[in-house]
């Protein structure tokens, strides 16, 4: 059963079309992550779900009911804002209990529910403080607590972690994920951080310029990107992309003249882009395609080493586990795993090797 249905939704701001035509079904209990570059319409879509932005055309249904003309409060949703948007004049308990109070719950009931949620989020000792007296991470927790207290049918998160430092972000990521496992409530989560998307999502929606590029489970998108945009967007360091053409003999000839035995089924003369992720290139013979290159950058990260090598005119990024003995300027052999090479149509970006 789907909790949220977005059917052919369009959003225009005057002459500007932020979302041309978008459809999406979200299953009950699913953790959906909307991801994409800045300005691609993630917040706009989320705010239309929340009822904070009008829907120009199309339909949004929550729990089977069309909500286009409903006020936010009638939609049974809760939202966590990037800036937290806590009520500065209320205590933590006041912030968290506000929606229940509006619902007409009696005092004891509100207090009980607030205490219950405060315990889950380790906020019990802070209930009497004002938001100004909290740290960034604590405010973030209060903002989440405020939405959890209501037990809504959908949680909407708009980049809730982007104001936290890296360490806290990793910690909160795990907490949100375990919260989801515990509550089982549908979550629509906006981020532009692809690691957040990969680690948290049941399904990722990759957006670009107001349209959906691809929807799917994180690893499916990672391994089987529908197009060059998705391939490049997910993964860090990102996928190597090298332009080339298909030769008469069905091989791929790269700009530098290098010929690779790929793309036999494609039309000769077609312009293609070769894509391979940095971790599928190896420095030892693993049976892939062997290429000789020059090392130009070495970046040890601890568990892994990232190398940038020059293959003709192209720069290629390689990620290997452990350390390497090479130095900048060395000529080395690399092996590219053939089964992990993708070919994209250069002009349309669509993946050809599926």
């Amino acid at each position: 059963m789907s909790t949220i249905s977005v059917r052919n939704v369009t959003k225009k701001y005057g002459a500007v079309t932020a979302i041309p035509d978008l459809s999406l079904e979200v299953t009950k209990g699913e953790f959906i992550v909307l991801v994409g570059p800045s300005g691609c319409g993630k917040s706009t879509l989320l705010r239309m779900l929340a009822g904070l932005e009008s829907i120009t055309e199309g339909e949004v249904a929550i729990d089977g009911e069309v909500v286009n003309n409903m006020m936010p409060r009638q939609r049974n949703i809760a939202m966590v804002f990037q800036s937290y948007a806590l009520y500065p004049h209320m205590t933590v308990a006041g912030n968290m209990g506000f929606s229940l109070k509006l619902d007409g719950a009696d005092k004891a009931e509100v207090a009980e529910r607030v205490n219950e949620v405060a315990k889950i989020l380790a906020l019990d000792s802070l209930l009497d403080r004002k938001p100004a007296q909290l740290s960034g991470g604590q405010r973030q927790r209060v903002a989440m607590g405020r939405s959890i207290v209501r037990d809504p049918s959908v949680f909407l998160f708009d980049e809730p972690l982007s104001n936290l430092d890296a360490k806290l972000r990793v910690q909160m990521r795990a907490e949100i994920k375990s919260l989801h496992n515990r509550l089982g409530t549908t979550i629509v989560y906006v981020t532009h951080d692809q690691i957040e998307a990969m680690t948290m999502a049941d399904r990722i929606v990759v957006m670009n310029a107001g349209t959906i590029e691809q929807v799917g489970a994180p690893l499916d998108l990672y391994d089987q990107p529908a197009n060059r945009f998705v391939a490049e967007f997910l993964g860090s360091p990102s996928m190597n992309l090298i332009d080339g053409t298909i030769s008469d003999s069905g091989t791929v000839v790269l700009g530098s003249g290098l010929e690779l035995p790929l793309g036999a089924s494609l039309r000769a003369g077609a312009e293609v882009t070769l894509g391979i992720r940095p971790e599928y290139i190896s420095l030892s013979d693993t049976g892939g395609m062997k290429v000789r290159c020059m090392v130009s950058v070495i970046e040890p990260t601890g568990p892994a080493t990232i190398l940038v090598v020059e293959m003709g005119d192209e720069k290629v990024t390689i990620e290997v586990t452990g350390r390497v003995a090479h130095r900048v300027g060395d000529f080395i052999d690399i092996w590219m795993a053939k089964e992990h090479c993708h070919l994209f149509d250069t002009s349309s970006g669509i993946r050809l090797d599926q």
Partner: protein
Amino acid sequence: MDATVNPAVRQGQGIFSRYRRVDTITKLTVIAATVIALIYILLPIFWMLKSSFQTAAEIKQLPPKWIPDQIRLDSYQDINLLIPIWRYIFNSIYVSAAAALLATLIGTSAAYVLSRFRFPGMTLILVTILVTQLIPPITRVFPLYALIQDAGLLNTYTGLILSYAGFSLPFSILLLKGYFESSCPPEIEEAALVDGCSYISTFLRIILPISLPGLAAVTIFTFLNAWNDFLWASLLLNSSEMKTIQVGIGDLTAEGGGTRYVSMFMAACVLATVPALIMFIFVQRWLVSGLTSGSVK
């Protein structure tokens, strides 16, 4: 090891004690400056207060008598014989409070719209508001008088109230606009809407309480300006029982307030100060800053 550590410690102590001494000097200087400033500000007020308890003869004594022999309240009773002081004070309270209320209401609505929506002509409106602040106030005497006269509002409280509210609106709007933008960003309202508020309850339960310091500032500003005004009250009102307290006191000056009735004049001045003071004490507790920090980011 001792030898390497000790000089550093000693030096540290040296610096510390030097800072301590500077600190004491700074403190004393600040206290002295504050006391001087306070005397400068409060001396005339003290003079007014103590004179209201003295007889005319005692006030004029040389060298001046700073502490009255006895607290005489006669002048506070006798002032009623000279002017209808309570009526004037009431007039002033009415006009100032009405102007403050009106300016706060209009200012809040205007500032809210200007802080939340983008619409054509908005920049023009803002620039116009700013420009009105650049024109010397005295230049509006004639046009405004003519305007009030044409509107048939001469010698009415309405005319005066509208003028006072109008004078304070540009400043009020600019102040509140900034306030709404910085202290009450739209996300807070959106959070309230999602939490279950209607537009009206969002305003009453969220925006209003958060904006109270801003509203208080505008209310005080308008009230005190209206309360202290002499020019417009004397221009626009001429029937004697409608006068405001400032005009009433002005009349008194011309009728022996500086000579024969000087202690009554001082009593009138004291009475004219009290309502403004009460108003300020009442509203200032909402002026506390920092109330809103921490809502976002």
